[in-house]
Each structure stands twice: as structure tokens, then as C-alpha cells.
């Protein structure tokens, strides 16, 4: 209960959360390993896909995973290679999986981060708007929008957006990362990039926006009934400041949590949206890998995504602690 809560305390808290995450990361690796071991047929097939691999490589994989050794030993070896950053080799792409994924990671992150920022901002505004006058037409509209957002699959929404804005109106490109034929430079290149990003971002935003809208509305409605809101009005604060400095600050906590804990869903969503729009990111790589039965890539992505979800959850906890002085650490 003491007032001394310096950055040192926060660091210790973060470290504690980090240590908490270690068993989870191990668990994720074990799940990954079990998938390889339990896959039907020859585990080597599961590891390198159904490729006519050179016999010496097949032998190397067998040795690396010690496929003739006992399960625990194989697990340990697998752990070792993961720790060294070795996620396997993709025969379809003739590249190490790690290299392949990292190369595409930037483009996926670009799409995801823009989406999170955009969706959160719009969701908060809509939520505030709806909460201002509960049960009004605006509120019902926002609630209806949120319900639709929960229910519409983002890949279908992507197709609709292409139909309307690319095919129908011709305003925006239907897919791709940037224009291949025209060689833009400088500002024009940025504009071109943004134009390619608008539709995938909208498609991916919808569900997130719905979640944020609904949550902002609910937490604001709850918070605005709090005693301290009444007190800040009694102190003469304007409604605007009551809302933004007291209401939203409190509502921010559940919003942060939801952004963090829904990270896994947005990863899945971006895989689907990238596929619809031919956005050359990790998601599209997943789609392609299914067709080429490039299992090492899929497993590598699963591991990477799981670990990043753990990491984002960890950051969420720390951000929560930063925002809420009541969290004891």
C-alpha cells in the first residue's frame, strides 16, 4: 500500500509476468512437436512435406529430430533447434522457414497494426457516441453494426469490398501489395501503397471495430454511473472533460485488455484477408503452404504466432498495470 511505485517495481512486475510466460512458450513448443510426431504417415513427410527431397536431406532430418530415438530425446533435440532459431526448411520455397517468414512478417505487421489503430479509434468514437444517448437511434445503429461485425466473416467482407470498390466503382485496386507495372517513386509510391492497403484494412477492421464499439459503449455506460463521475461534475468539470478524462480513462482498461487478448483472432483474420487480397504476407504464405503441403512453414508459423500472442498478452498485462495504479506489483 505504499506510495513508492517506481519504474523498478514495474520492471519487476514485467519480469514476473515474463517468467510466468515461460511454461506457456514451452507448452506451445511441445504442442508443435506433438503435431509433428502424431502426424499420420512418416514423420519426415510431416516435416518436409510431400516433396521429392534428396535422400541425404531426408537422412539429415531423421538425424536432426532423432526420429529413431525415444520421444523425450526427440523433444529435447527439437527444443534445441527451435532455440537456435531453426524452424525447419521449406522445400517448396527452397529457403529456411525462419527466413521465409521474417521476410513476409513486415507486410503482415503493417496491415495488422494499421488495422488495430484504425479499428480501435473508430470503435471508441462509435462507442462513445452510442453511450452518450443509450437506446437512441444512434445507439441502436452502433449496436446493430457491432452485431454485424461479430457475424460477418472477414474474407467474405473482403470479397464484397472488392466487388464494390474495385470492380464496381473502380476506385481502389482489388489486391496486391503495390502496383507492379507502374514504377512509382517518392510520394506517389506511398499513395500507391496506401491505396492497396485500404480495402484489406477495412475488411480486417470490421470485427475489431465491432468489439471495440460494443466494449467502449458497455464500459462507458458502467463507468459514467460511477460516484466519482458525479463528483467530478460537482467540481464543475465540463461534460467533455468528464467523458474524456474520467470516463474514457477508466474505459480504456477493458479496451486495452481486449486489444491484447484478441490478437490471436486478428492473426487468423489477417491470414484470411491476405488470401482474399493477395497481400503477400505471412497469412498468404500459410494459404499457399496448404496447397503445396509445405508443412514446416505451417508449423513454423504456428510457433511464431503462438509465441507472439504470449508476448502481446504479456505487454497487455504490463500496459494494464501502467494504466491502473490499483494493480499491485
Amino acid at each position: 500500500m505504499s506510495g513508492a511505485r517506481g519504474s523498478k517495481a514495474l520492471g519487476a512486475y514485467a519480469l514476473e509476468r515474463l517468467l510466468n510466460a515461460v511454461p506457456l512458450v514451452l507448452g506451445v513448443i511441445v504442442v508443435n512437436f506433438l503435431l509433428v510426431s502424431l502426424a499420420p504417415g512418416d514423420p519426415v513427410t510431416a516435416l518436409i512435406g510431400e516433396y521429392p527431397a534428396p535422400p541425404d536431406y531426408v537422412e539429415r532430418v531423421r538425424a536432426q529430430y532423432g526420429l529413431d530415438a525415444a520421444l523425450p530425446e526427440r523433444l529435447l533435440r527439437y527444443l534445441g533447434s527451435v532455440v537456435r532459431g531453426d524452424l525447419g526448411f521449406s522445400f517448396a520455397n527452397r529457403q529456411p522457414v525462419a527466413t521465409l517468414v521474417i521476410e513476409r512478417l513486415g507486410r503482415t505487421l503493417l496491415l495488422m497494426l494499421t488495422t488495430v489503430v484504425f479499428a480501435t479509434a473508430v470503435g471508441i468514437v462509435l462507442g462513445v457516441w452510442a453511450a452518450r444517448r443509450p437506446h437512441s437511434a444512434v445507439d441502436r445503429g452502433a449496436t446493430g453494426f457491432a452485431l454485424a461485425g461479430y457475424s460477418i466473416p472477414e474474407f467474405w467482407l473482403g470479397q464484397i469490398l472488392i466487388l464494390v470498390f474495385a470492380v464496381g466503382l473502380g476506385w481502389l485496386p482489388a489486391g496486391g501489395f503495390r502496383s507492379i507495372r507502374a514504377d512509382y517513386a517518392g510520394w506517389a509510391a506511398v499513395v500507391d501503397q496506401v491505396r492497396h492497403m485500404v480495402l484489406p484494412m477495412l475488411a480486417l477492421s470490421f470485427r475489431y471495430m465491432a468489439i471495440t464499439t460494443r466494449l467502449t459503449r458497455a464500459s462507458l455506460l458502467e463507468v459514467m454511473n460511477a460516484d466519482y463521475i458525479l463528483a467530478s461534475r460537482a467540481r464543475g468539470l465540463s461534460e467533455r472533460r468528464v467523458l474524456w478524462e474520467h470516463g474514457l480513462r477508466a474505459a480504456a482498461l477493458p479496451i486495452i485488455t481486449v486489444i491484447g487478448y484478441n490478437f490471436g483472432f486478428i492473426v487468423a483474420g489477417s491470414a484470411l484477408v491476405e488470401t482474399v487480397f493477395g497481400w503477400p504476407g505471412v497469412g498468404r504464405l500459410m494459404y499457399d503452404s496448404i496447397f503445396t503441403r509445405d508443412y514446416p512453414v505451417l508449423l513454423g508459423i504456428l510457433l511464431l504466432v503462438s509465441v507472439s500472442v504470449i508476448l502481446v498478452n504479456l505487454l497487455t498485462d504490463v500496459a494494464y498495470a501502467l494504466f491502473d495504479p490499483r494493480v499491485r506489483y
Partner: protein
Amino acid sequence: MSGRRGAAARGAHPGVPGGAGNRGVGEPEGVAARATDVPLGATPVLELRDVVTEIRGVRGLVRPVDGVSLTVRAGQVVGLVGESGSGKSMTAFSVMRLFPTKAARVTGGEILLRGGDGRVRDLRTLGPDALRAVRGREIGMIFQDPASYLNPVLTVGRQLEQQLQAHGLGQGADARIAELLTDVGLSPEVARRYAHELSGGQCQRVGIASALACRPALVVADEPTTALDVTIQAQVLRLLARLQRDQGVALLLITHDLGVVAEVCDHVYVMYAGRIVEEGPVEDLFARPRHPYTQGLLAGVLDLLEPKPIRVSIEGSVPDLVRPPSGCRFHPRCPHAMPICEREAPPLLPRDEGAALGHSACWLHDPGVVGAGVTVEPGREDGP
């Protein structure tokens, strides 16, 4: 600032619960009764005239405040007592037209406030911006549960700063906050703390600091000590009374604790089922309660040293405000109920010839209704 009351703590008032003997007369912080310190003619700071407040609820329209009139004069401490559900807190909220529920609204009467500039305005007709400028500046408010009235994720200092900024006093806010916190007996360092790091008593001290932050003419305190530990209650009450005296601010104190009223108030209003049933200077009203309800209240607590919620002392329960009793609202519980009480609500009649000692709303005082001598003496165990 003014020392006009310094040595004015006086002796015993017969009939005052708890007896004046319990108070140290020479105690520096002693808050003795001082009904006559404020001249009756002092300028009213706040005047409620026939204020009606309605709540639109699921079960229909409720009038927790039904034609309440009361006056708070400069430098005066006015108590408003009643059991829970009597509408006393809603009266407090009506002063600033600020309610815990959106369903509540002041629908009638006048709320006259004399501002710092001496101008009298009716808060009932004020627009939202003008009203906002009054809140926290001309009128400070202290709430019941101190901890929940502070935002848990903002520091105490930030919340006081917001208030000063809202009223254009942002310049030098830090110094002012330090001064305020010192005034209420807290370390200036508390400005950096959060509500959960403070005790209930400390939170309420912050609440008092906030109420006084912009040097208002009036402070409305809604049961400021009820939620605190008994030992802390006295401390906070004493602090409040001392600051009130030092700063010459008028105080409207809502409470269900008659001991508190006896200790700090100059004047008291007794509320029952949305209406004022009796009012007068504390010492006289406590010595000679005229209304059967007040008599019941005082009879119930007369020999108690510890204050006790008034509800206990009276038979029956609070009336349902959706369908209040006809006539005098107290008649179903009144030991002296007469046929007329059921039919007609009694007017507020002077408690004495000159009306200097307040009013009481009871048919028993109407010579046209009953002969002289029916008035019941206090201190006797009346009724069943």
C-alpha cells in the same frame, strides 16, 4: 478568518441530546452549539423555495423532494435531518441540480444562490454552462462515501487540479493544492497519491479540500461522516466545523445523526417523506420539539451517548413515495393522528409568536383544530 466565535462556546442546553457536558468547552477545536452567533438577519446564501424534485422510475413518478423550502445564511451551519428515504440527500443533490441518476430532475420551485459577487441567481433556470461554473466554485459538495468519489486511476492532485482549471484557477494550482491539503491536515505529498493508497478518513479530507478549493460561499455535505469509522467521524467533523468557521463559509449538512446536528449546527430542518416537517434553531428545537415526528426522534435518542440512526426510534417504516399517504404524511405513524391529518396536509405554522424559533407542520399547533394545551412535551415516551 474571523474570530467572532472564538470564545462563544457556551454552556449546557437542557434537552440537547448528549448534553453539552460531553464537550470540552476549552478545546481549541471544540465545536459547540452556537445558535445565536449568526445573527438571524444575516444574508441568505442559499434559499430553496418550494423545490420539487421528481424521479421517473419503473414504478412511476416519485417525488423525493416535494415542495421543500429552506434557507442557509452566510456563515451558518444548517442541518437537514431525516431517515433514509426521506429525501434529504435528494434535496442536497437538488441544490446543484446534479443527481446520481439521469431520471431525476428539479421540476418546480426556486433555488436562489447568492454568488461571490453578491448577485442572486435562480439555479433552476440557469443554463448548463452557467450551472457548471457554479458547481465546485460557488458551491462545494462533500459526498458520503469518500473513496468512491475519487477516481481510482487519477492522482488526488490531478483531480484537484482539474477542478481549479475548470474554474480558471489553473495558475499556481500546485501551490494552492499543497495549501488545501495542508489545511485539511494532510501532507502536500498526498497530491501524488491515488485513492486506494489513502484511508477513508484521508479520502474524506481530500473531499473537504475539493469542496473548499475555489473558496465557495456554500458547502453542501451529504452525510460526510456516515461511511467512516466511528473514531474518525469525530475528527473529520471537527475539521469540517473548524474550516467552516475559519473560512466563514455556509454549510448545509445532511445527516441522520442527531448528535452531529447538536454538535455543529446552528439551525436544523427535519424532513419526512419529501417534506419539511419542522425547522428552527437547534437549541430551541431540541429543547422543545413541537412536531410529533421530531419528538419521536428525540425521544429515541435522548439517553444515548452514541449516535444512532433515527429510523430505529420510530415505529413503522418509511412511506412508499410512489403513493405517499394522504394529508399529513406522518399520520399513519403518528400517535396523535386526528381525522383531519388524513385529509389535509398541515401548513408550516410558527413555533412561537414571532416565528423567530422556526416552524412546524402539524395540525396540533392549529388552534382552530385543537384547543390549547394539547401540545406534547418533549422527553416523554410518546405513543405506543
